């Protein structure tokens, strides 16, 4: 049971400061990027930077890079289930279509379910 794991792993001061500086730079960057017109890529850039910043915090400030496997599994689970919640809910809203019945339902238009036409089901 009692695996003799390291109780603490004190990080070097320099690394903390480096991470801190990077985080501040990234904050400036994400704010700056917002003033450049990238179209839909603005959102992508903002989220990518946020994910990068969050990873830094998790890995260094929260010591995830020295944690046992179990903790990493917990982190991955949390992220994965968050993605399930957002992603799978979105499958409804993104495919619901603003029309009352999606166009591919109309029998007079070619549809993805075309092969079903005329079948008894």
């Amino acid at each position: 049971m009692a695996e003799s794991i390291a109780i603490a792993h004190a990080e070097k001061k320099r690394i903390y400061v480096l991470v801190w500086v990077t985080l501040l730079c990234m904050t400036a960057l994400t704010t700056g990027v917002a003033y450049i017109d990238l179209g839909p890529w603005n959102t992508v850039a903002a989220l990518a930077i946020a994910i990068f910043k969050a990873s830094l915090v998790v890995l260094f400030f929260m010591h995830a890079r020295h944690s046992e496997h179990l903790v990493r599994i917990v982190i991955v689970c949390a992220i994965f289930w968050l993605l399930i919640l957002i992603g799978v809910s979105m499958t409804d809203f993104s495919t619901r279509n603003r029309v009352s019945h999606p166009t591919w339902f109309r029998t007079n238009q070619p549809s993805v379910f075309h092969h079903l036409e005329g079948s008894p089901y």
Partner: protein
Amino acid sequence: MLHHLPLIPHVSFLPPEASSMAPRVDLLLWFTIGISVFFTALIFILLFVFAIKYRRRSPDELPEKQIEGNLPLELTWTLIPLLIVIVLFVWGAKVFVSDRRPPANAVHVYVVAKQWMWKIQHAEGPREIDALHIPVDEPIECILTSQDVIHDFSVPAFRAKMDVLPDRYTTLWFKATRVGFYHFYCDQYCGTFHSKMRGYVDVMTREGYEAWLSGQERHSLSMAGEGAKLYQQYGCITCHGTGKGPPWVGLYDSKVHLMGGQTVIADDNYIRESILQPSAQIVAGYKPIMPTFQGQISENQILDIIAYIKSLATTPNAQGATAAAKGAAAPTTKGNGTGKGE
């Protein structure tokens, strides 16, 4: 076709199969029941046989040999159920898709639910409460909306069911195949008198239906006709008839280009939103000057206006609506529709 299949016994606990969908659903239902009965029987028999055969004969008895498991057996009872549910899934999805896909020539009937009654409106004009008269063997597409909470329009004999949502149109279609009375219910709990929110569908022959139509205390106008009146009354004409706003002719079911570069299909939901929240989707090339009609116009009046816009459409999908609007007193021709000359 399928409901004559001799495989399906006539069992009284299912409602009559009164729509084109019903035999398809029932075939799938009997298949699933068959599978369930088989597996239930299998498990019960095994439980009984094992329990009796291997009953404990003395208090300290232990099994002769311990069995840890058996991989081929495990795989068998993993894969066989898997195959069965895949079959059920595909079959179920097929039934569902055809259940959700209305034929192009379906006649529209408008159903407005409110706590705790059903207001039903035919394109020809008649309105009814808690009753729906339809002709047999003709596809009917119900366009459902609610004035308050979520309801659910369910006709067990048609094996048809759809939630009725506020501020949105959902649809449900069926083709009744048998003349008769069939109950419909509100299936989604909607408050105090949920259980009183029910009525009946009267499926009639075409002649009977015509007779019923003529016997109705007819509203002077069809829905499209009412809509045309509202077009004047609410002053829609001052913009939509003069070019300040997008014209209504040919609008229904067409692609509309919006200000942000997106396009939407001008369907019932879109028109409804445009009336109630004009600023939500601005048509490209027009100014956002339209006032909201939220709170000033009833659900039924919105449906009338939609019916009117439908009657002005030129796409084949709205044929039924156009035909229905023929008897209307209001102008339906292109020239009059834009209202420039009036």
